[in-house]
């Protein structure tokens, strides 16, 4: 896609609400660290939200999560995307409940459109300890 899309924001949070009439976005509890069960359990569900702008074109959007200690991929989600207008964004709102984190530590979320990285977001996973 030329020029590559740009992202006005990539967030990880506990909830996302988009008002149907005004399209105003409310992000709830945007986090830097998340307490979550580790593999083989699935994560505590959370949301990824991004606002993307691109040229009028269609492409493939991939959201990837890497464990930063070894650059190991732990999750990837793919979906088609269409930018209908240069000045109208695409809101990506993904509920992530199937991700499995192998260990506590630093992770990076990467958003690709085709083969271009358009956004990065680092976050930390802490092992959830429940009595």
């Amino acid at each position, binding site marked *: 896609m030329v020029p590559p899309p740009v992202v006005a924001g990539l967030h990880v949070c506990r909830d996302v609400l988009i008002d149907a009439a005004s399209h105003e976005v409310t992000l709830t509890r945007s986090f830097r660290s998340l307490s979550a069960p580790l593999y083989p359990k699935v994560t505590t569900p959370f949301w990824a939200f991004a606002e993307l702008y691109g040229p009028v074109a269609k492409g493939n959007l991939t959201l990837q999560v*890497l464990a930063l200690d070894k650059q190991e991929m732990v999750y990837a989600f793919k979906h088609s995307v269409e930018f209908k207008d240069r000045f109208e964004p695409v809101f990506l709102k993904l509920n992530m409940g199937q*991700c499995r984190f192998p260990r506590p530590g630093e992770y990076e979320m990467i958003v690709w459109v085709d083969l271009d990285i358009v956004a990065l977001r680092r976050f930390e996973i802490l092992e959830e300890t429940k009595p």
Partner: protein
Amino acid sequence: MSSKRDSLSTNLFSPTILDLDDSRTPPVFVWAGSNEESFRLVATEEIQLFLRMNNLGPASRAAALAELARRGISPDA
């Protein structure tokens, strides 16, 4: 005056909303205990795409290549 303009601009604002849930649309890759086991569950064309993305660490990359080799497929095919 300003509220009328604000209302107009809000009405014209029409983002495309991709409202996605990975319980309805399964991810193409999920950690399955090791790199080798994880790539075993991934479609061939997705593995080839991940290799072209070129941001995997050595262990992920080696597992992706090994899985393609196990299927008898060239990474560039």
